[in-house]
C-alpha cells in the first residue's frame, strides 16, 4: 500500500452532488481507501485538489447541489436539491498537474479513452475536462500519466461512468462500448491494456465490477404512472387520445411518451417497468402538460429494450473484468452485488440506509453518485475484497464519520 494509485470515475474522483468539489474529493472512494491504507503504513494520498472554497463545477458548468427550498410552477415550496450558485467555478478546470498526484478518478471516464492522447486536450471536442485538469500535458493519455507513477497498489473502477453516461440520457445519445474489441474500440481490450500496465509496474490491484445503474434513485424516483388525473383532466385527455385507442381514467395513469415504433402517431403510454428519469423538467410536467398532451421525449425514458441493452452490456463488461482480474491475480470487488443489496435497504449501526432519493441517506443529490457516507460503505467492500485476496488486515472505515445529506 506504500504507493496507492486510484483509477476510476466519479466515485474514485469524488464527483458527487453533480459537481467536483474539494469536499467531494476529500470524501472520494480513493480518499477514504487512502486513509484506511494509511492506518497500515500507506503514505498519505495525493489528490488533484480543487480549492477548498470552490462551489464546484459540473459537467455542464453548474455549481454543486445542496438541499434547499424550491418553489415550483404551482407556487408550492418544498425541500429540493438546488444549486449553491448561479454558475459553477470554472477555475476547477485549470490544469493543476503534479507528478505526485495519485488519484486518477476522472468523472465521466470512458474505457475507450484510456489510451487516447487527445482526451486531456481542451482543444479537442471530445476531451474530458476532468482529465485535462490533471493531465501532464495536452497530448498525454491517462495511461501515459499512469505509467509515470510509482504505484505499488491500484484500485480500478472503470466502466460505471460510461454506463451511467449512456443511461442517464435515456439511452438517447452516444452508445455503449462493445464488450469485445481491441484497446480504444472495445471494453475488454481497453481494460486489458490498463491491467497490463498495472501488472508491468509490479503493482497489485483491486478491480471493481459495474453495478446495475438502474437501481439508482435517478432512475427509480418518479413512477411511470405518476400522471394523476381528476375527472376533467381525464376527459380532456380522452378527447385527444381516445381516437388512437388510448384511454385515461381518474387517478393514476401512465405517462405519455414518444416511441417511433408505436403505431402511426409514434406515441404511447409507458408500461410497468419502464423508467422515467430525474432529468425530466418537472415544472413542464406539472404545469405544461408534458407527459400527457405533449408526450415525453426519449431522453427522459429508459424503455424495457433500452434497459435490456444496458444490462446485457454490463453483464459482458463484468464477465471480462472478473476474468481479466482473476488471470492477473488481482482482487475483485463486486460493486454489482453491493449496489443490489443496498437497493434493498440496510441498517448500519442504527442508521437506516437505502437507495431512495435523498431520504435513503447514501446517495448524493444527483441521484447517481454516492455521498461521502455511501462512498465509505463502498470503500468497505473494497477493503473486504483486498483483505480476502491478499490476506491483509486493513481496518474498515466508519461510514458514520462521513456525511450523509445535509439539511437546511
Amino acid at each position, binding site marked *: 500500500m506504500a504507493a496507492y494509485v486510484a483509477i476510476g470515475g466519479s466515485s474514485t474522483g469524488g464527483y458527487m452532488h453533480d459537481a467536483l468539489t474539494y469536499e467531494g474529493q476529500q470524501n472520494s472512494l480513493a480518499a477514504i481507501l487512502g486513509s484506511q491504507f494509511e492506518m497500515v503504513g500507506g503514505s498519505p494520498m495525493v489528490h488533484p485538489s480543487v480549492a477548498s472554497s470552490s462551489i464546484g463545477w459540473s459537467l455542464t458548468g453548474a455549481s454543486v447541489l445542496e438541499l434547499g427550498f424550491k418553489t415550483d410552477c*404551482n407556487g408550492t415550496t418544498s*425541500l429540493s436539491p438546488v444549486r449553491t450558485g448561479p454558475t459553477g467555478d470554472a477555475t476547477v478546470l485549470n490544469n493543476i498537474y503534479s507528478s505526485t498526484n495519485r488519484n486518477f478518478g476522472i468523472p465521466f471516464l470512458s474505457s475507450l479513452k484510456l489510451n487516447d492522447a487527445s482526451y486531456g486536450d481542451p482543444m479537442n471536442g471530445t476531451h474530458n475536462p476532468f482529465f485535462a485538469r490533471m493531465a501532464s500535458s495536452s497530448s498525454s493519455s491517462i495511461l501515459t500519466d499512469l505509467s509515470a507513477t510509482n504505484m505499488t497498489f491500484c484500485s480500478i473502477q472503470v466502466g460505471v461512468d460510461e454506463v451511467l453516461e449512456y443511461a442517464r440520457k435515456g439511452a438517447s445519445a452516444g452508445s455503449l462500448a462493445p464488450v469485445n474489441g481491441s484497446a480504444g474500440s472495445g471494453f475488454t481490450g481497453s481494460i486489458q491494456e490498463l491491467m497490463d500496465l498495472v501488472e508491468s509496474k509490479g503493482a497489485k490491484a483491486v478491480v471493481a465490477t459495474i453495478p446495475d445503474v438502474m437501481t439508482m434513485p435517478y432512475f427509480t424516483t418518479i413512477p411511470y404512472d405518476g400522471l394523476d388525473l381528476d375527472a376533467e383532466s381525464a376527459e380532456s385527455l380522452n378527447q385527444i387520445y381516445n381516437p388512437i385507442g388510448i384511454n385515461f381514467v381518474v387517478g393514476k395513469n401512465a405517462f405519455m411518451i414518444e416511441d417511433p415504433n408505436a403505431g402511426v402517431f409514434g406515441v404511447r403510454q409507458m408500461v410497468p417497468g419502464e423508467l422515467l428519469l430525474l432529468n425530466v423538467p418537472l415544472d413542464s410536467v406539472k404545469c405544461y402538460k408534458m407527459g400527457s398532451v405533449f408526450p415525453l421525449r426519449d431522453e427522459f425514458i429508459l424503455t424495457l429494450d433500452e434497459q435490456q441493452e444496458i444490462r446485457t452490456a454490463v453483464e459482458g463488461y463484468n464477465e471480462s473484468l472478473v476474468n481479466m482480474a482473476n488471470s492477473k491475480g488481482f482482487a475483485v470487488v463486486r460493486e454489482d452485488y453491493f449496489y443490489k443489496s443496498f437497493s434493498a435497504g440496510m441498517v448500519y*449501526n442504527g*442508521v437506516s440506509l437505502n437507495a431512495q432519493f435523498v431520504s435513503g441517506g447514501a446517495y448524493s443529490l444527483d441521484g447517481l453518485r454516492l455521498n461521502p457516507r455511501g462512498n465509505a460503505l463502498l470503500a468497505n467492500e473494497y477493503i473486504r475484497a483486498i483483505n480476502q485476496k491478499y490476506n491483509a488486515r486493513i*481496518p474498515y472505515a*466508519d461510514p458514520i464519520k462521513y456525511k450523509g445529506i445535509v*439539511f437546511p
Partner: protein
Amino acid sequence: MSIFRCASCYSTDMNATQLKKIFLMFLTSGICTTSFSQGYQVNFQGQKQQGMASAGTALPQDASTVFFNPGAASFLEKGSIEIAMTPVFGNTLFEEDSTGVTGRTNSPMGKPFSVYALLRNKKVEALSYGIGIYTPFGSTIQYEDGWVGRFALTRLELMSIFVQPTISYQLNDKLGIGAGFVYCIGKVNLQKDIPVIDQNGEYSHAELSASASGMGVNAGVYFKASEILSFGLTYRSKVTMGVADGTAEFTVPEALAPNFPNGSFSSELPLPQVITLGAAFMTNENLSIAADINYIGWSAYDTLAFDYVNNTESLEDTRSARNYENTFAFRLGGQYKVSDLLSVRLGLAYGMTPVQNGYVTPETPDADRISYTGGLSLNLHEHFDIDLSLLYTHVERWDHNLETNLTGKYTTNVVAPGFALRYKF
C-alpha cells in the same frame, strides 16, 4: 385549469412520504440499563448482604430484612433504623469489530441507596412493622461524544425508588410470614443522536424524558428449622412502570422540524418479578453461610414500545423487540464474627444474563457474570454500628445487534463500595 390534480406526487421534491424511511430506525431502541447488574436490576439493598454476594433471604440480621425477607423481620429482636448508600463506579468500553473504533462510557457515579426502619410492636411481641425505601432498578449510562453507537444511544438515565411499608408476623418459633406493599416512582431520560446533519455538520438529537410510577408487593416466608439451619422464600412481584405523559424533544434542522414535533409520548417498562429461595447455615456462633437462588422473570421485557401523541411520517410509534429471557442468579456468602467489634464477610455470585444474542444494546451491555464481594461490620456501640461492603465484577459480551447491526465487544468493569449507618433500639 391545470390538468393535474396531484402535481407533487411524482416530484423530486421532498415530501413527507419520501422522508419517511430516513428515521424509522432512529427511535427504535430504548430504555433500560445498567452496566453493573443483570438486565437493569441493581442488587444493592443491604450492606451485610452485599458483602455476601447479596444472599440473605434466610439470614435476617438487620432492618434490611424488610427487603430481603418480610417474613423474617419479626424474628429480629431489636428494632433499628439505617441508611445506606453504594457509590457505583462503572465503565464500559465498546470495540467495534470491523473498524476497530472504540467508544467509552463516562457515566456519572451510580448512587443506589436504601433506608430501612423496623419496629417491634410493644403489645404483640410477634408483630413487627417496617418500612423500606430502596432502588432496585436503574442507573445512568452515558457514552462519550460522537461514539460509534450514537444512533442507538448516547445517554440513558433510569431511576426508580421503591417505598415499601411492611408487616411481619411470627407464627411460632419456627415460622414467620410478612408482606409489604410497594409503591414505585421513577424517572427516565433517554437520549440519542438522529442520523440527520444540519448546515454546521451537527447531528440531530432526540431526548425522551418521563416520570413513571407503579405498584407491587414483596412477600416472604421464613422457616427456622433449627438453631443451625433456616430457609426463606420470597416473592417480589413485577412492577410495571407506566409512562403516561413523557416529553419528547427533538433538535433537528429547521427544514425537518415539522417532521419531528416536540410533544408527549407514552410507554411502559416492566421491572420483573423475582422469586428467591434461600438457605442459611449457622455452623457455630461465629460462622454463618448463606445461599440464595433468584429466579427473575425477565421475559416480561418482551418489547419496548413508544407511542407518540404527534405522529408524523418520520415519527411513527416504535416497537423494538427485547425478547429477554427468564434467568437465575446464584449467590453464596459467608460471615465470620471475629470479635464483638468486628465481623467480616465474603461472597461470590453468578448471574445469568436475560439478554439473548442479537439483542445486546448499548443500554444493557450485559452478559453472564461472576461478582466478587467482601464486607465488614463494626459494632461500635450498643446502639450504633457501621457496615462496609465492596463489589467487583468484570463483564464481557460480544454481539451483533439484529436491529441496529452494531457489532462488537462490550467490556465492563464495576467497583461498588458501600456503607451503612445503623441505629439500634
